[in-house]
């Protein structure tokens, strides 16, 4: 168990270096052709922002790290396209739909724990009770979360995470941040994700469910990989699928505003 605590920073480092290497490889793939023939000097356009300075800005969200964020956004597009989505498609191809559904339900059920302690942190009693009811029902009648009998019983799935808890305590959302692989976030939601992940890691390590096995780490690693695949399988968003040139701006606006709205729930 101790070993696993020690290996955590190392595996994070390793993951980071893999991502960094991928980032370099994938982001250079598309920009070989840009250096050819410099164009003539710029000429001011017919219309510019000052023409409409009497109006409010549209969908403006502060984004001090925009160039970095955009490059991660583009990296995520390539990561999805060449690595993540092909793996997810493979998974969808080889597993029957009911198995995919079951897998999603199990991970969703595990995720209820996060909602549970965060709705406690946020002092949201109703959400806490509903989630408690869901966890109880789905873990028992729902065979360890494979099925979701709670929803038809009227217990609709709630959501809460540590980012929202911090928001509830008055922590500012912080700058918009696009995280490698995870995608659009804010600094607060990213921090919240890290805290939730750590809490989970500590809980799993303490419970040590595969401690009796020699291959405990391998099993846990496999489960994490499956969870990562399931996460993308459930997420319909595809980078640049809209083909709309201002997609980044609209996604930023919606991600940020949705995050702020969710604080009120």
């Amino acid at each position, binding site marked *: 168990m101790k070993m696993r605590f020690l290996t955590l920073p190392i595996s994070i480092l390793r993951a980071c270096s893999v991502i960094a290497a991928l980032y370099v490889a994938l982001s250079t793939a*598309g*920009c070989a*052709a*840009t250096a050819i023939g410099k*164009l*003539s*000097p*710029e*000429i*001011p*356009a*017919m*219309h*510019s*922002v000052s*023409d*409409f300075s*009497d*109006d*409010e*800005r*549209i*969908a*403006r969200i502060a*984004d001090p790290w*925009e*160039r970095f964020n*955009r*490059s991660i956004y*583009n990296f995520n*597009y390539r990561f999805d396209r060449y690595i993540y989505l092909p793996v997810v498609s493979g998974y969808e191809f080889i597993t029957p739909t009911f198995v995919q559904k079951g897998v999603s339900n199990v991970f969703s059920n595990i995720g209820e724990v996060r909602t549970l302690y965060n709705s406690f942190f946020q002092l949201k009693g109703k959400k806490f009770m509903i989630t408690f009811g869901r966890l109880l029902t789905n873990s028992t009648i729902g065979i360890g979360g494979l099925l979701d009998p709670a929803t038809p019983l009227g217990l*609709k*799935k*709630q*959501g809460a995470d540590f980012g929202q808890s911090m928001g509830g305590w008055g922590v500012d959302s912080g700058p918009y941040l696009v995280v490698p692989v995870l995608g659009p976030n804010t600094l607060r939601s990213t921090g919240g994700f890290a805290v939730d992940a750590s809490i989970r890691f500590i809980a799993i390590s303490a419970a040590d469910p595969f401690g009796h096995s020699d291959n405990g780490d391998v099993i846990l690693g496999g489960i994490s990989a499956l969870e990562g695949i399931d996460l993308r399988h459930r997420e319909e968003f595809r*980078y*640049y*699928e*809209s*083909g*709309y*040139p*201002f997609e*980044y*701006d609209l996604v930023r606006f919606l991600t940020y*505003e*949705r995050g702020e*709205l969710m604080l*009120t*729930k």
Partner: protein
Amino acid sequence: MKHLKLAAILWFILLPVVSSAANDGYDYPMLGPYEATILGTPNNLKYPPPERILARRIVLDIIPDGKKPDIFFYNDGLRCTLAYQDKQAPLVFLIAGTGANDQSQKVLSIMKALYSAGFHVITLPSPTHPNFVISASRTHVPGDLTEDAADLYVAMEHAWNKVKGDVEVSGFYLGGYSLGGTHAAFVAKLDEERKIFNFRKVLMVNPAVNLYNSVTKVDGLLEKIPGGQRKIGAYFNAMFAKFAEFYRKGDFIEINDEFLYTLYKSKLFSDDENCGLIGLSFRTSLAGMVFASDVMTNGGYVVPKNRELTATDPLENYLFVYMHLSFMDYFDEYFYPYKHRKYPDLTRNALIDSLSLKSIEEYLKSSSKIGAITNDDDFILASGEIDYLRQLLEERLTVYPRGGHLGNLEYRDNMINLIGFFK
């Protein structure tokens, strides 16, 4: 008084019979044109989708060795969608409407309906979608129906060459909605000369009759917003605030269809506001189209001439400016000057006339393969244009009493009629 009451009752009884003789009573919900356009068709009244569908994305390399700006690095070619039967069947090409791509909700709903009726389907983006402007338009300046149709025709040939080894086709059909409907008519006419597909039937769904009239109407949707078109930013923020407030107060969890439907049932937005929201949605599409064209042609309209945008450049300032430019601005400041440089003799009025079904009316009148479906309250049509369609197409035109612009597209009676046209 008694007479008046009787007359009113009679009027209500007779109205459905008079307005659409083919359907006794049209059961699409009683919604105003703007409401219908936004809300569409309630799920329980929709034409049912097929149980399973074999479909795949096809990406076409139409303009080879076309130099692509870094900012459009993700644009890998023209994206079309093929839905295929595992046996021989007729194939329908579908052209999406203004600003829509090959997988927009509307084009997919037509695709699914035709698929369950046994057709192969290939959907294409609208020539106004950035993907088409970048990858399939030879001029990269959309809006000329004849040129757009020629580009579409080439795209269809590419798509067909790509899939013909895999699907067995017994004949070709063509359809499109909104601007895509108007495009379909021009593509059909071109096909009479090129004769590659020999389309058996061609359907226009809620088409524009005259593009200039329609964009005038669409620009007009924003006239009623507080402060007028120039205050589109303030309008956007006010509408969003209203939406957010509604969400905060209600007992909702996810922002999904159910939430949106509740929102509209509560009449949160007034009729004028709905009208403005539709205008806003068109404007958002237009912004993407003009940006794509501006960059591809180095047009110097909003992006300074000779500026090379990279894949990480902030674009919000451009978005802001494009959102303030109307279809009419595009026409007068960008499209017509471009045309005029190319054809110095072309007058503004002659250009407007060429952007109309009228310019090919002899063909449309004489060709029995062409048909159309539209609504009496479709606000993209100028007054008199429905009558024009009537005398042009006669019994080949169906006019529903309501539905706004495509609000009733997915309604089962409409889909049954649409499928019936191709059968």
